[in-house]
């Protein structure tokens, strides 16, 4: 049961060697910065969970991207993985600039002024979110013991961000917020990749980045269609599509 998934993954072995060339002092500081950024990412995730305004959500999402990109760059520096700089730049340009911009344009086009509606009330969502964070720490405990990476303690945070993204998609009614939830979930995955294994191979990351971009475009097209069909972006309306018997 203690199967260490990360060590079985093809990139898991050998990548940890990079940081031995740095002194312990450096490593210590790097781990501190890493943890700090992880905390900020988690904080923005919670922020998104409680944020009611769409603009606010987008800003929070952009901030999360900033922290993510910073974290990637630092991990890249510490581990001596220079391709991580490229993913860091990619993250910055895509998730901090491009995607928020697209979402902004969308919101302006569709004139979404309304505040975000939630299904479960906000304190309740917060409670569930906290439970998920605890659950994530519980889950990743065996991995933390086995790993010797400097970033190992942030794996739990990454998992929590993924789950909070999913939770956000569940609790919100609005299509735009669901997309932001999805993108936040993707952020969590990316964070998990960098913190658990010092990043995926560059090819994979490029692919993922492209995927996210294309997904954003497709969502944008869908928004227009949903909007024109139902005259709203409230996904509850789509329940009408259910096949009756």
């Amino acid at each position, binding site marked *: *049961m203690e199967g260490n998934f990360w060590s079985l993954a093809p990139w898991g072995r050998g990548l940890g060697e990079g940081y031995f060339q740095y002194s312990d002092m450096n490593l210590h500081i790097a781990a501190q910065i890493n943890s700090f950024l992880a905390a900020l990412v988690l904080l923005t995730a919670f922020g998104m969970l409680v944020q009611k305004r769409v603009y606010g959500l987008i800003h929070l999402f952009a901030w999360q991207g900033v922290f993510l990109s910073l974290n990637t760059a630092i991990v890249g520096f510490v581990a001596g993985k220079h391709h991580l700089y490229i993913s860091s730049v990619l993250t910055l340009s895509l998730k901090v600039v491009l995607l928020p911009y697209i979402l902004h344009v969308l919101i302006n086009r569709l004139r979404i002024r309304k505040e975000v509606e939630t*299904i479960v009330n906000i304190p309740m969502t917060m409670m569930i979110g906290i439970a998920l964070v605890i*659950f994530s720490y519980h*889950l990743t405990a*065996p991995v933390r013991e086995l790993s010797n990476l400097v970033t190992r303690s942030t794996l739990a945070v990454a998992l929590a961000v993924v*789950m909070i993204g*999913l*939770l956000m*998609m*569940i*609790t919100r*009614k609005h299509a735009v917020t*669901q997309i932001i939830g999805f993108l936040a979930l993707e952020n969590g995955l990316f964070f998990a990749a960098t913190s658990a294994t010092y990043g995926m191979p560059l090819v994979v990351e490029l692919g993922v980045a492209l995927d996210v971009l294309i997904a954003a475009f497709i969502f944008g097209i869908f928004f227009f269609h949903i909007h024109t069909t139902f005259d709203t972006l409230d*996904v*509850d309306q*789509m*329940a*009408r*599509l*259910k*096949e009756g*018997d």
Partner: protein
Amino acid sequence: MTASLLTVASWAVLLLLFTGFVSLLLHRRQGLMITVCFSIACVASALAIFAGFYSVSSGSTSQVIIAVGLPDLPFHLRLDPLAGFFMTVVGLLSLIVSVYSFGYVRHISAKRPVTRLVIFYALFLAGMLMVVLADDALFFLISWEVMAAASYFLVMFEDERVENRRAALLYMVVAHVGAIAILLSFGIMSGLATGFEGFHGYTFDAMRQAQFPPQWATAAFLLAFFGFGAKAGIIPLHVWLPEAHPVAPSNISALMSGVMLKTAIYGMVRVAFDLIRTFPWWWGALVLIVGLLSAVMGVLFALMQNDLKRLLAYSSVENIGIILIGIGLAMIFTSFQMPLLAGLALIAGLYHVLNHAMFKGLLFMGAGAVIHATHERNMERMGGLIHVLPWTSALFLVGCVSISGLPPFNGFASEWLTFQAFLLSPSLPSPLMKLLIPMGAALLALTAALSAACFVKAFGITFLGHWRGPHNPHIHEVNLPMRLGMIMAAILCLVLGILPTIMIDWMDKVPEQLVGTSIGQTAGAFGWMWLTPVAREHASYSGPIVFLVILSVIVVAWLLLHVRKGSIRRVPLWDCGFEKVTVRMQYTSTSFAMPIRRIFGFMFTIREQVRLDPRAAHRLFPGTIHYYLRVRDRFQVWLYRPLITASFRISRLVGRLQQGRIQAYLIYSFVTIIILLMFMR
């Protein structure tokens, strides 16, 4: 020589596949397309007959691996006596039906384009030949599906009617349930042959060389029996037959009933005798019991039908039953190490395969001719057609006599052989079998008698008496190619009945291959005139002598009636003292079957209502009487309806998961992830 036979057979398949393309090219010229395509089909069928016939008579086996198929899994072809025998059967009937189709399809093409019919006709024939040629599970299943899909589109040909679409769907469902069972069966066998890691056990050769543990062999056999049984239409999997056969074009029904059902028999024989080889006696007993049930119930259901083609479809269930009786007996005898009797029973079953292909093909072609001439499928509205369709009625009569098992036609020969196999069963070592098998013989006798009654009804109601239809339509005899096809089938029915010895001598290589014995030595010991299955003092039958006696009786009777003038007088019908006899007072199809419906009523779900006209002055003097009768298959009511209801209920329960809300779907995945993370940590 042997390799070239396989080449000839492959050419037949390629020609048929080629026909599909030709028909597409000639779509604009329907008349030319019919001529060209069915000519090619005739040539291909002749090639198949040639290859099949010689591979049986030479008893040779040839194999070839062709570099087509999935990577690393090439197709294997093989032509051995068993395959050759079925290839001959398929080829013979496809030749006859292709000749018939020249005329029949031309009639259809007057109303609608027939490109689709021609393409799938060619594919269907190619699929059947490929099934017989296949020597690995992969190619077999592909061919099997080609055959099933092609026949599905043929059943669907007149797809503007709801009943056709429903019938085709039902056929497709049953065919696929069967195909899944066959797939699983081959999966078990190939896995046990070379282990479940690789795929190299998929050839039949690997399965032949393997020794299967008994429980797995049983599972493989039962699955195969179920799967092939669904295609063959054994009871209770016969439901698609009476739906699909009536709605398909008649040349297609002839092929489906005549030879497609036989490919399923081929599959059963191939799996049991060739791939598994050693089996306990109860497998044979199971096949025998299912065969007996199908035979008796099939003919009883057939008797109750008013639709001519539906009647023929149920009669196919009966004949498949008779074939399975032969196969089942052969399996029992094989498991008790009695090869001579096993050979006899196998020959009986296979001979019936050939005979049924001929006479059922003939009957379906005849039914097609009748339906084409009258635009009517319901026998209750036919009658007196012997005056307007003399050729068709004479040929249909030949089919009826053959299927009723009357000498000198072929039905008698094979049913008589089956009886011989039954009557020799007391030599079995198991006392239980000794007791049970004679009861089977009694049931077979009952079947033969009932099927005679059934075809007296089919012929009598359709062709004799007076026209019952509402109007007096313009009916004329069908065109030459249709008659020619039927004549060929009728002649074969007669020849196969008169010369069983020669045919058995030819077929003898099949039991030699499968059970390691030949009965040709004893069966033809007294020359080609006498068929003596085991020994002369036991039983013997001479087709030619019986034929000559019957012929001379007919000639003498005809002469006695016609030499003297005035011995035939035509006078008005004696009306038993009634004032006026109308055509509505004739025997109808329903009234003819009434006694049997009363006796065997417990087998059917019958709803019978008599309603008097409520406006009548007195109950005893009703103005009009409405009689309502509905006879249904018990299996439909008992077995299939609960199944359908249950599947609907389950689907509705599952359908509740579909909320139509994205959040609900997300929650499903979220909860699943959480649970998996919790337990798989």
